[in-house]
C-alpha cells in the first residue's frame, strides 16, 4: 500500500517535471543547427555521433518505455510495470552519459583528428574509446549523476518534511497511510541524497585532474566564486549526510524534540541542489569561453549568419516561453506536492477521473462505470469485450 501510494504520488511529480525536460531538450537539440552551424560544419561527426546515440537509442527507448509505464498502468502485471520504470531509469542514465560525451568533447577534445586545408578543416573520429573514456565525459557524468541523486534526495526529504511538520506525528509508528508514506520517503530521500553527495563530491574534485591539464577554470573571477560556492555547499551537504542517517536510528527523526524546526529547515533547503547544479553548469560552460571546443574552435567562429535582430527576437521568444513554462511547471509541482495522496490522477480508475470532470452517464458507461454507489466494480467494459488479462494493478 505504501509503495503504491509512493509510486503514484512521486510518479505524478516525476511526469510533470519530465514535461519541462522534453520541452527544454527540443530547444537545445535545434540550437546547434540554428545558432552554431559552424560547430556542426567542423565537428558535426565527432560532436554529433554521441547525440545520434542519445536520441536514436537512449531517449527513443526512454520515452517509449515511459509512455508504456503511464498508459499501460491497468494492463501490465505489477512486476512488469515496475520493471518498465527501471528500464526508464537506466535509459535515462545512458541518455545523460551520451550527452556528457558530446559535452566532454567540447571541454576536453580527444580521440579525433582535424583533416583538410586550413580554414576548411573537419574533425574525424579516430578513437571511439578515447571519446567515451574522456575524463571530461566519464568523471563529469558521475559528478552529474551524484548531483542529480542529491537533488532527488532533497525533493523527497523537503516535501516529506513539509507533510510531516503538518501531520504532527511523534509516535513510534506512523498514524496512517499518509504519514507512513512520508516517513518511508524521508528515509529513501536521506539515503539517496547521502549517496548522491558522495558521488558529486568525489567526482567533482577528481575533475581537477583534467582541469589542471587543459587550462585553469578560475581565470574568471565569477567562475572562481561560483566554484567556491559549489564546493562549500557540497561540504555542508556532506556534513548533513553524516548526521541525518544517524537520526533514522529508532526513528529518532520522527519522534525527537525540536523536529518541527528541523522539518522546516529541510523544506526550506529544497531549492539548494538546483541552485548549485546551475552554478555547476555555469562553471562548466563559462569556464570554456571563448572556446566552443577548448583550444580548437572559438564561439565567434561558428555562429550563424542570421541578423542580430532575428537572433535577438528568437532569444526573447524562446527564453520568455521557457521561463514562463518553468514557472508554471514549478507552481503545478508545488500544488501537487502539497495535495498529498488525495485525488491522485496517475494510477486512478478512468471512471473516477471522469466523474471528477463532470462526465455524463453515457461517457462513464464507456469506462465501465454504471451509476451505482459502488462505482461500477465488476461492471462490463465499455468496449463490450471481456477483459481476461491480469487484474488491474490498482485496487480501489
Amino acid at each position, binding site marked *: 500500500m505504501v509503495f503504491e501510494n509512493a509510486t503514484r504520488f512521486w510518479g505524478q511529480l516525476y*511526469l*510533470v517535471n519530465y*514535461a*519541462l525536460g522534453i*520541452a527544454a531538450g*527540443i530547444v537545445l*537539440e*535545434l540550437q*546547434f*543547427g*540554428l545558432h552554431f*552551424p559552424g560547430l*556542426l560544419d567542423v565537428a*558535426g*561527426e565527432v560532436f*554529433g*555521433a554521441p*547525440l*545520434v*546515440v542519445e*536520441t*536514436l*537509442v537512449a531517449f*527513443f527507448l526512454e*520515452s*517509449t518505455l515511459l*509512455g*508504456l509505464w*503511464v*498508459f*499501460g498502468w*491497468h*494492463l501490465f502485471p505489477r512486476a512488469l510495470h515496475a520493471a518498465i520504470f527501471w528500464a526508464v531509469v537506466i535509459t535515462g542514465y545512458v541518455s545523460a552519459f551520451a550527452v556528457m560525451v558530446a559535452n566532454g568533447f567540447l571541454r576536453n577534445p580527444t580521440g579525433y583528428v582535424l583533416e583538410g586545408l586550413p580554414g576548411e578543416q573537419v574533425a*574525424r*573520429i579516430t578513437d571511439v574509446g578515447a571519446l567515451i573514456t574522456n575524463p571530461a565525459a566519464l568523471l563529469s557524468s558521475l559528478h552529474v549523476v551524484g548531483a542529480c541523486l542529491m537533488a532527488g534526495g532533497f525533493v523527497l526529504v523537503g516535501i516529506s518534511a513539509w507533510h510531516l511538520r503538518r501531520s504532527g506525528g511523534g509516535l513510534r509508528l506512523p498514524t496512517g497511510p499518509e504519514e507512513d508514506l512520508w516517513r518511508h520517503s524521508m528515509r529513501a530521500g536521506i539515503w539517496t541524497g547521502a549517496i548522491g553527495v558522495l558521488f558529486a563530491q568525489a567526482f567533482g574534485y577528481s575533475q581537477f585532474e583534467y582541469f589542471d591539464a587543459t587550462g585553469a577554470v578560475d581565470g574568471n573571477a565569477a567562475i572562481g566564486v561560483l566554484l567556491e560556492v559549489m564546493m562549500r555547499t557540497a561540504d555542508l551537504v556532506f556534513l548533513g549526510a553524516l548526521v541525518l542517517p544517524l537520526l533514522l536510528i529508532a526513528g529518532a527523526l520522527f519522534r525527537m524534540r525540536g523536529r518541527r524546526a528541523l522539518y522546516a529547515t529541510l523544506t526550506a533547503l529544497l531549492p539548494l541542489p538546483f541552485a548549485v547544479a546551475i552554478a555547476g553548469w555555469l562553471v562548466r560552460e563559462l569556464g570554456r569561453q571563448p572556446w566552443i571546443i577548448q583550444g580548437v574552435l572559438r564561439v565567434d567562429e561558428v555562429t*550563424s549568419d*542570421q541578423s542580430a535582430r532575428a537572433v535577438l527576437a528568437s532569444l526573447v*521568444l524562446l527564453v520568455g*516561453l521557457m521561463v514562463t513554462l518553468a514557472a*508554471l*511547471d514549478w507552481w*503545478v509541482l508545488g*500544488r501537487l506536492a502539497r495535495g498529498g495522496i488525495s485525488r491522485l*490522477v*496517475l494510477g486512478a*480508475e*478512468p471512471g473516477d*477521473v471522469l466523474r471528477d*470532470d*463532470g462526465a455524463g452517464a453515457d*461517457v462513464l458507461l*464507456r*469506462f*465501465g*462505470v454504471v451509476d451505482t454507489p459502488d462505482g461500477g466494480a465488476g461492471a462490463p*467494459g*465499455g*468496449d463490450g*469485450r471481456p477483459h481476461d*488479462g491480469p487484474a488491474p494493478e490498482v485496487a480501489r
Partner: protein
Amino acid sequence: MNAAAWAVLLAALVTGWVVLDGAVQGAGATLLQERDPDGSDRRREPAERRVVLAAVGPLLLPGEVWLIAALGVLVGVFPHAEADLLNAGYPVAITLIASWALRDAGIWLRSRRPGHVWRDVWDVVLVVASIVLAGSWGALLGVAWGSGLAALGLGILAVVLTRLHGDAVVAWRLRRTGPLPVVVTSVMIAAPVVGTAIAAWPRLIEGGISAQALETLGIVAIVVLPVVLALQVVAWWLVSRPLGRRDMLFF
C-alpha cells in the same frame, strides 16, 4: 550503413513522427469542436475533451520521440544538411520549437489543476499551438524544396491533413465511424514527407559525414532499432485497443 541507408532511416523516422504525432496535433487542433451526427458543429464539453485527450494521449510520448530521433540523425549524420535547412528556414524552425514546447506544456499541464479557467485557457493554447506546430512543420518541409510557395502550400496542407488524421484516430479509438479510415489519413499525411525526401535527396546525401563514421554509427543503429521497434509495437497496441476502463486518463 551507407549515406543512402541513413537517409532512408531519416525519412522513416520523420514519417513515423507525422503519422503518430500528427494524430495528437490534429486532436489538439480540433479539441474544442465536436461534430454531431446531424452534421452540426458545437463546442465540446470538458469531459468530452478529456476523452479526446485520453484517446490520443498514449501516442504523445512514443510519437514525438520520432522527430527527436530524426533531428538527432540530422545533427549527427547529416550535420551540413541540417545547418543549411535551419539557416534557410530559420523563422519557421523557431515557431516550430516554440509551438512544440507550448503544445506539450498544454497537454501535460491542463489536467493537473481542477479549475475551469486554468483548463479553458490551456485548451485554447493547445488548439493554437497544435495548428502552428503542424503549419510550421509543413513550411519547414517546403523550405527543403527551396521555394517560398512550397513552404506556404505545404504548411496549409499539413494543417488540413493533421485535422483529418486526428479526427480519424479519435473516431477509431472510440469505435465510431469517422469521415475517413486511419489508414487513408496516415498515407495522406505521410505523402508530403516521402515526396520531400525524394526531392531533397541529393542535397541530403551531400550533407553527410564520412563513410567510416556512418558505418560505426550504423552498427549501433542496427543493434538497437529492433528493440525500439518492438517497444513501439507495444505502444501502438495500447492505442489500437478501444478506449475503455483499463485505460489511463493522465492527460
